[in-house]
């Protein structure tokens, strides 16, 4: 599930990737330590390594669709799609995609939001990968998985650069509650970086 557990432990590229991500305190609201991947994008080697690690993993899995979640999923997804010969499907906030869409609601801390996908973008039976920069509660990823599954795709995995502590807690809890939490169990999740241990140390990342 996490890069270390998936055998990526010790991949020398992960250290450079982790160092390139900066933490911005109190964004968007006080108390949140925001994992800012824009600094990763300024480090050409680290950015390339990030894409390469995903490509190395997914190129032989028969994946024909990479679905990226607006907007930071758009930064990573297309490069992966191009390298593995898959199409790229943007999953967007409401009213952005023209033409016919299907939509799926998901829960925010306060209220709900919706994620949309084009009808006809994928066909039943396609194998899909979902990409976002970061996973926290997993709500957005779960909505993405539901959208793809509604269109008959098989979601092979969800892949994110960074995972936050809530994810580990939800997934650990879910696995002991035997199918009660379908959302967490439904996510086959790859994270390059698990920031849960760093979350509690100080306001700066120690990598």
């Amino acid at each position, binding site marked *: 599930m996490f890069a270390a557990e998936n055998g990526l432990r010790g991949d020398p590229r992960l250290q450079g990737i982790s160092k390139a991500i900066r933490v911005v305190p109190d964004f968007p609201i006080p108390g949140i330590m925001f994992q800012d991947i824009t600094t990763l*994008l300024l480090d*050409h080697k680290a950015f390339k390594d990030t894409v390469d690690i995903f490509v190395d993993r997914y190129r032989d899995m028969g994946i024909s669709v990479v679905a990226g979640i607006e907007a930071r999923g758009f930064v990573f997804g297309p490069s992966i799609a191009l390298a593995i010969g898959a199409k790229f499907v943007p999953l967007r906030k409401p*009213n952005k995609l*023209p*033409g016919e869409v299907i939509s799926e609601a998901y829960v925010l801390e306060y209220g709900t939001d919706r994620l949309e996908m084009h009808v006809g973008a994928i066909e039943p039976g396609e194998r899909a990968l979902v990409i976002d920069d970061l996973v926290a509660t997993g709500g957005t990823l779960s909505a993405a998985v539901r959208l793809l599954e509604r269109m008959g795709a098989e979601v092979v995995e969800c892949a994110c650069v960074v995972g936050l502590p809530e994810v580990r807690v939800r997934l650990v809890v879910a696995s002991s509650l035997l199918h009660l939490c379908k959302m967490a169990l439904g996510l086959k999740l790859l994270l390059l970086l698990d920031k849960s241990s760093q979350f509690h140390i100080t306001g700066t990342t120690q990598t």
Partner: protein
Amino acid sequence: MHAAASLLNSSNLSLRFASQTQTRLSPWIAAPSSVRLPLNRSQNYRIALPPLHSTVSGDSTQPQQMASADVKAQDPRIAGISSAIRVIPDFPKPGIMFQDITTLLLDTKAFRDTIDLFVERYKDKNISVVAGIEARGFIFGPPIALAIGAKFVPMRKPKKLPGEVISEEYSLEYGKDVMEMHVGAVQAGERALIVDDLVATGGTLSAAIRLLERVGVHVVECACVIELPELKGRERLGEKPLFVLVS
């Protein structure tokens, strides 16, 4: 109008131009699809297509301009890219013929060709920054940046970027919007490319140019997949070169 709309929304996504609809873009729509770059439009391409081996802003003689236009007109990849883009009528509001690049992203060859065409043009131009405009510029910019060895800088709507930003206001058809860039993302003297899926009035691109130039970056060129020439974005960019694949 309705017949055309249902045709365009059908599975035949290769239909590039709407037929018989009255819209403010109708002169462009009516252009025959078989003539992708008619020679009498080379005037529009003098800035976009300088001779292949000179700097982007260099002067070019007339025969070389025509040669450049011919080279691009004959690139066999352009036709596939153009036909992969679908047109959605009346989105986001009546009268707008929306150029939807999502169907291009479903065509692995055409998407690959799109990126290759940009990479071939920019890889030897010493560009260290590719700035992509939210959100569809985020789809095309990073693959280009990765291929040419540049960093990628997202230009975003307000309050999306954490930390310190600079911002630039720009005009919309009705009202204004604001574009933001991170402080410290770029350094004075760097050479930059700005990428977006489409240029219409040029307002968004102009705001991006101003943001980068405010911090001393040299914007080498703006690159878009699609241009809507009737909206005169090229003129709004003035002396700043604009390169497009499809117009």
